[in-house]
C-alpha cells in the first residue's frame, strides 16, 4: 500500500479483505481524486469570483457576456468523458462482484429472516446469527446481539445463495465491498474470494423492521486446515445433539434455525411478541376478548396459523411456520416451553 491509498480510500474503509475489494478501492481513489479536482475547479472558481468581482461602488457595472460556445462545449464534453470512464470502470468492477452463475468452491445457503441469518453448508452444518447474548456487555442500553461465527477458507471462491423467509433483507460485508439483497421467493448470490484472514462483520442493509440494526453475523476467514477442523468439530457436535432430550432439541430450534427467540423472550421481557415464560398451562387473553389456557393444541395452532388467535396487546406480526417445521419438532418445542416456568 502506498501513502496515497492510505490517506484516501483505506483510511476510513475497512481493510479490503477480498480479491474484488481492492479493485473497488482503486475505483474509489479515482472518484475521490477526480471529484476533489472538480470541486476545487467549481467552488474555487466561485470563491475567486466572489472576491474579485465584489461590488465596490453602488453603480458598478458588470460585463455583458451572454454565452461562449467553446467554453460551453468543453464543460459539457469533458465531464461527459470523465463520467463515461467512471461508468465503464464501475461496470467492470461490478461484473467481478456479481459473478452470477459461477459455482463456488464452498457453497452456503443463507436464509434471512426477521432478524437473523441462517447459514447452511452442504454437509448440513448450520449457523444461526446473531446469538441471544449481548454484544456490548458493559453497556446496559445496547440492543446489539453477539454475532455467531461463520467460517470460510481463505483463497477459495465462496458462493452464498441468499433468500428470505419474510421481507427484504440485504447481506452486506463492508470489508468485502459487496452486498446483495435477500428477496423472498427468489434466489440471489453473493460471491467472493477472501484474501485476508480475520473476522468480518455482516450487516443487514435493507430496512426490515424493529430489529433491523440487530441483524449481524461474523464471517471468519481461516486457512484450509482450520476450516476442515472447524467442519469436523461441527459435525461431531451435531451427532451429539441427536442424543439430547426433546426439551433440549426444542431449545436449539427455538434459539436456532427457527429463530423464535428473535421475537419471543424466555425471561418474561417483552420483545416483539409475548414472552414464553410461564406460558404453558396459563391463561392467554386475546385481542377479540376471548381467552384459553395454553396447551399443546393452542401452541401448535399458534405456530401453524399464527393469525387464528392474537394475544391482546400485540400486533399480528408472526408469519406461519407451515411447511418449515416438522411434526416432531413442534413436539420438541412444546417440551421446551413446558420447562419455562
Amino acid at each position, binding site marked *: 500500500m502506498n501513502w496515497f491509498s492510505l490517506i484516501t480510500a483505506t483510511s476510513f474503509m475497512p481493510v479490503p479483505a477480498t480479491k474484488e475489494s481492492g479493485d473497488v478501492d482503486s475505483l474509489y481513489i479515482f*472518484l475521490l481524486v477526480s*471529484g476533489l479536482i472538480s470541486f476545487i475547479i*467549481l467552488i474555487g472558481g*466561485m470563491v475567486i469570483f466572489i472576491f474579485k468581482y465584489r461590488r465596490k461602488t453602488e453603480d*458598478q457595472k458588470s460585463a455583458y457576456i451572454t454565452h461562449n460556445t467553446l467554453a460551453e462545449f468543453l464543460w459539457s464534453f469533458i465531464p461527459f468523458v470523465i463520467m*463515461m470512464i467512471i461508468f465503464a470502470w464501475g461496470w467492470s468492477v*461490478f461484473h467481478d462482484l456479481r459473478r452470477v452463475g459461477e459455482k463456488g468452491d464452498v457453497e452456503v445457503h443463507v436464509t434471512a429472516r426477521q432478524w437473523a441469518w441462517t447459514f447452511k453448508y452442504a454437509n448440513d452444518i448450520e449457523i444461526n446469527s446473531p446469538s441471544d447474548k449481548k454484544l456490548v456487555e458493559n453497556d446496559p442500553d445496547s*440492543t446489539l446481539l453477539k454475532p455467531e461465527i461463520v467460517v470460510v477458507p481463505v483463497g477459495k471462491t465462496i458462493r452464498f445463495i441468499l433468500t428470505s423467509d419474510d421481507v427484504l433483507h440485504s447481506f452486506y460485508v463492508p470489508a468485502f465491498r459487496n452486498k446483495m439483497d435477500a428477496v423472498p421467493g*427468489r434466489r*440471489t448470490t453473493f460471491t467472493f474470494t477472501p484474501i485476508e484472514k480475520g473476522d468480518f462483520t455482516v450487516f443487514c442493509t435493507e430496512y426490515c423492521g424493529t430489529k433491523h440494526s440487530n441483524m449481524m453475523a461474523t464471517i471468519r476467514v481461516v486457512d484450509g486446515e482450520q476450516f476442515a477442523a472447524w467442519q469436523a468439530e461441527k459435525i461431531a457436535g451435531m451427532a451429539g445433539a441427536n442424543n439430547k432430550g426433546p426439551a433440549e432439541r426444542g431449545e436449539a430450534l427455538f434459539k436456532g434455525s427457527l429463530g423464535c427467540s428473535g421475537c419471543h423472550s424466555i425471561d418474561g421481557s417483552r420483545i416483539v411478541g409475548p414472552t414464553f415464560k410461564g406460558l404453558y398451562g396459563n391463561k392467554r387473553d386475546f385481542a377479540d376478548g376471548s381467552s384459553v389456557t395454553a396447551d399443546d393444541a393452542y401452541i401448535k395452532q399458534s405456530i401453524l396459523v399464527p393469525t387464528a388467535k392474537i394475544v391482546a396487546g400485540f400486533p399480528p406480526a408472526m408469519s406461519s411456520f407451515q411447511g418449515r417445521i416438522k411434526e416432531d419438532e413442534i413436539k420438541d418445542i412444546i417440551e421446551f416451553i413446558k420447562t419455562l416456568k
Partner: protein
Amino acid sequence: MAHEQHNYLNHQKGIWSWLTTLDHKRIGIMYFVAIMSFFFLGGVFALLVRAELFTPGKTLFSADVYNRMMTYHGAIMVFMVIVPGIPAIFGNFVLPIMIGAKDVAFPRLNLMSWYMLMIGAAITGSTLFLENVDTGWTFYTPYSSIKTGLGVIPMVLGVFIIGFSSILTGLNFIVTTHKLRAPGMTMNRIPLMVWALYSTAILQVLATPVLAITLLLLIAEKTLGVGIFDPQLGGDPVLFQHFFWFYSHPAVYIMILPAMGVISELVATYSRKVIFGYTAIAYSSLAIAGVSFLVWGHHMFVSGQSEFAGILFSFITMLVGVPTAIKLFNWIATMYKGSIRLDAPMLFAIGFMFLFTIGGLTGVYLASTGMDVHFHDTYFVVAHFHYVMVGGTLMALMGALIYWFPKVTGKIYSDLTGRISWVFIFSGFNVTFFPQFILGNMGMPRRYYDYLPTFTELNQMSTFGSWLIGTGFLIGLFGVIYALLKGKEAGNNPFGGKTLEWTIPSPPPHENFESTPVLTGGPYEYR
C-alpha cells in the same frame, strides 16, 4: 399612515376571504404557512432521530419508536415539504407575475390543490394518533404489505391525495406558462425560474400518477389480499421498487429543479449581470426532466435485478450528470466579471452551489455500479441525498424567502438576521452530513437504531450539527416575525431585479399589473 395603498393583502378582509381566495398570491402565502408547519414537525422528528443516535444503544426511545420517527421525518419532509415547497409557495406567488399575467390559468383548481394538500396531510398525520407507521418513507413491500400494521393504509392514502395536489399544481403551471404570457414574452424570454417551474410541472403531471397507482395497488394488496407485491400471494416484491422509483427518481428532480430556478434568479440579481447561457440553463431543465424518467433502476443495483439492467441504468444516470454540471458552470460563469453583492439571499445561493456540488459529485460515485454496491443503503447515501435535496432545496427556499419577502409583504427582511441564520444552517449542514459520508465508508447502514461503538464519534458530531441547523432555522423564523412587525418599507425594487415582479408595487395590487406589460427583451438585461 395617511394614505394606505390598495393591494392584494387589504383587498379583502377576514379569515374567510383567505380560505376562499382565488388570488394566486394569497394561495402562495397559505401554502407558506401550511408547509412551514409541516417543516417544523418534520424538523422536530429529525432532531429526535439524531438525538437517539447520539450514543450507541438505547439513548431515548425504543427501536419501535425510533423507526416510526424516522418514517415520519422522511415522509413529511419528502411528500409534504420538499416536493411541494418551492413550486407551491414561490411558484404560486411569482410565476404569474413573472410572465405578466393576472393570475394562474385555473384559480379555482389552484385553491383546490391547496385543500388537497391539507386533506392529504390530515389523513397522513392522523396515523400519528391512530396507528404509527414504521416502514420508512419508501414503503417497500413486502414489509409494508404483510409485516406491519394497518396504519400504512391511511398513510399512503394521504400521500396519494397529496400527489393529486401536486398533479393539479403542475397542470395549472403548464397551462399558465403556455397561455398567459404577456405580449412579447416568447418562451425564450421567460425568466429561468419559470422554466424551472415549467419543467417541474411536466414531471409532476407525468410521474405522480405512477406513484398514485402504486400506492393504490399497495392498499389493494393490504386490504383485499390481491397478490401483486407479496411473494406469499404470488406477487413480486421487487416490482414495487420499480414502480416506486419510477416516480421517486423524477421526484428528486421535482424537488431540485425549482431550487435551481431560484438560484438562477438570485445569481443574476446579486451579480447584477445577464445570466450566462440562458438557453443552456433553460433546456438543461427539460433535458433533466426527460432523462430522469429512465434512471430509476439505479436505486436497485443490488436488488437482484439483472447485471445488464444495472449497467444500462448506470449509463443513463451518468447522462443526467451532464446537464446538472452545465447548470453549475453557468451560474459560476454568470458571476464572472459581475458586480457581486453578498446579501443573505446570495449567501444562500452560494451555499446551495457548495452543498449541491458535493451532493452531485457523490451522486456520480453512486451512479457507478461497482462503487454503489458498497455504498448503497449506507450513511453515504443518506449524506448524498441530504446534500443535494436538503442542502439544495432548503438553501434555495431560504434564499427565495428573503429575496421575495419584500415583494410579498412590502417589508424588508433584515439582512443581518438572514446572514446569521445562514452561518448556522450552512455550517450546521456540513457538520451534520459530512461525517455521514465517512460513516458510509466505514460501512454503517442507514435506518439503524443502534450501531457499533466504533461509529460513535461521527454520530455525535452529526447530532451536534443538527442542533446548529435547528438553531439556524429558528433564527430564520425569528427574522420573518421581526420583519413583519418592524421591517422597513421595501419599495418596488429593493435589490435591482430585472424580472417583471420588480416593476410592480410591493405588495402587488390585487390584479398584479395596472396595464398589461409588453416585453421587448430577455429577462436579465443588465448592461
